[in-house]
């Protein structure tokens, strides 16, 4: 669904280039004349924000790598060197650390938006699955980056997460030793995590290209979930979407800057300013906030192997969403029951996040179990059944009708 490009560069040099590599026409058709639904709301600006955040992480990360030393005796000290000695090192590191949180915040908004408006439904299944892959690689990247600091939380996060693989029957211990490159988390582990932490963002960038490609093949969903039918339903990407994306990106950057300049350690843990000590586990270890819901699911299940399976399943299940949701109506606007279950699902996800930060005892364990059951029931029971039993509201005939009223 790329817009038909009539791109004809003015300058002779660009004309010369265009004949040999039509990159101008590609950009023009994808980001200038590309038709976007006229009714997109601000939730649709998070794709652009995510691309921007990936850029921020790669740029600050490459610069930080110039000052960081991936060696167990020097890693923590080199981070402190970045904070105290390197010119603007404190700013670059706070941008990178808080940037990760902003990146995850934006990706969660983006994902919940996709679920609310049914953006994963036919023909956008591959687009959605590519997004799930990006999210998985993001989680791996964020985890390894957190380990590089080599504070107490870093070390014990590395220990706990790599030990998840020890739950695999038979070969678990062999796999864990292989991941560590030793008999415990140590220098070989830190060194390889550094290598992979540098690599994976570029893997993400590659999958993002596929994600955008798939998006431009099937076109954007929109708040009505009704496909554009005529030219009246769409507007040109530039200036309409460009300025809307740009404006909200600026608003988002204000939030980002507030964290970086006013509360840069709010989302971190004080224990991570203690150098890694393999002899002492901190009394209360928790992952970064963006992993907390999954951590709560892991702890909610009293069996080790089943807990690890549930943790994995809670992420992998997202890839099957296009087939678990049986309703033909995309947008929650026209699905009164789905809307209620959706908001309950959001509350459950946030609730699991809160429980993940609490010690695993008493009422917290019971609540975590109830919420875990709802989490899976939402995908495996509610969504398949709603498509059969829900009475949906009538859809508008077109996007322009929903925006302008029937008289248009």
């Amino acid at each position, binding site marked *: 669904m790329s817009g038909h490009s009539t791109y004809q560069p003015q300058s002779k040099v660009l004309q010369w280039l265009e004949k040999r590599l039509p990159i101008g026409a590609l950009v023009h058709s994808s980001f200038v004349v590309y038709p976007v639904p006229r009714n997109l709301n601000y939730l649709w600006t998070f794709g652009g924000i995510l691309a921007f955040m990936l850029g921020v992480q790669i740029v600050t990360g490459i610069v930080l790598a110039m000052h960081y030393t991936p060696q167990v005796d020097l890693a923590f000290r080199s981070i402190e060197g970045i904070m105290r000695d390197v010119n603007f090192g404190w700013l670059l590191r706070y941008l990178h650390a808080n940037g990760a949180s902003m990146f995850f915040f934006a990706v969660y908004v983006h994902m919940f938006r996709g679920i609310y408006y049914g953006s994963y439904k036919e023909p956008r299944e591959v687009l959605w699955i590519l997004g799930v892959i990006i999210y998985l690689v993001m989680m791996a990247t964020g985890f390894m980056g957190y380990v590089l600091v080599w504070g107490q939380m870093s070390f*014990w996060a590395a*220990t*706990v997460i*790599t*030990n*998840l693989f*020890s739950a695999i029957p038979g070969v678990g211990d062999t796999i864990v*030793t*292989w*991941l*560590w*490159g*030793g*008999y*415990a988390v*140590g220098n*070989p582990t830190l060194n*390889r995590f550094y290598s992979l932490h540098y690599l994976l963002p570029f893997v993400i960038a590659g999958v993002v290209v596929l994600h955008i490609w798939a998006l431009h093949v099937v076109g954007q969903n929109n708040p009505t979930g009704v496909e554009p039918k005529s030219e009246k339903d769409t507007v040109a990407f530039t200036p309409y979407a460009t300025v809307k994306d740009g404006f909200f990106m600026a608003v988002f950057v204000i939030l980002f800057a507030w964290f970086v300049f006013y509360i840069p350690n709010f989302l971190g843990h004080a224990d991570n300013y203690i150098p890694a000590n*393999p*002899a*002492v*586990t*901190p*009394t*209360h*270890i928790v992952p970064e906030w963006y992993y907390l819901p999954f951590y709560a699911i892991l*702890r909610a*299940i*009293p*069996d*080790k*192997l089943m*807990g690890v399976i549930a943790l994995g399943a809670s992420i992998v299940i997202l890839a099957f969403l296009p087939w678990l949701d049986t309703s033909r109506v995309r947008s929650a606007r026209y699905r009164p029951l789905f809307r209620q279950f959706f908001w309950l699902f959001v509350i459950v996800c946030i609730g699991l996040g809160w429980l993940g930060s609490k*010690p*695993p*005892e008493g009422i917290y364990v019971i609540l975590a179990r109830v919420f875990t059951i709802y989490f899976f029931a939402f995908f495996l029971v509610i969504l398949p059944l709603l498509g059969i039993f829900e009475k949906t509201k009538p859809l508008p005939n077109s996007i322009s009708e929903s925006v302008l009223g029937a008289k248009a």
Partner: protein
Amino acid sequence: MTTVSSAEHTRRDFLYIATGAVGAVGAAAALVPLIAQMNPDASTIAAGAPIEVDLAPVADGQIIKVFWRSKPIFVFHRTKKEIEEAQKVNVATLPDPEPDSARVKAGHDQWLVVIGICTHLGCIPLPHQGAYDGWFCPCHGSQYDTSGRIRQGPAPKNLALPPYTFVSDTKIQIG
């Protein structure tokens, strides 16, 4: 560009199969060093040689921590009361049933030597804590008794036993 197809086997078919086979074997062979390099290297293995621990300074009831292969090893000098607690438990009721006699060396009932890594997700349990006078893991609440056996919580197994022998009555060799 056209390709001539024929029902007969041609020399090109042979080349396809032969090239594909060489490529597959080559790719598989290339994976071996790429995967093997992540396993513990020679210096790590060498640093994992056996160590000797002198038990004489360990007081009654004391738990000391030594490191072998980067893993913490708990050496627990158990009191009479703690040994009795460990022995009188009905083994069949345990999540990972093992009698106390299988966890210590015969004739050395007072010495319990275990790897100090919670069998749940690898945290280091805190000594002399929890409801069973053994260890308590702060990460996910697993509790171990005075024989290092799992009694309560998400850990599936008892604290593992390292390979060790008594060199003399007051000295052990771990590894």
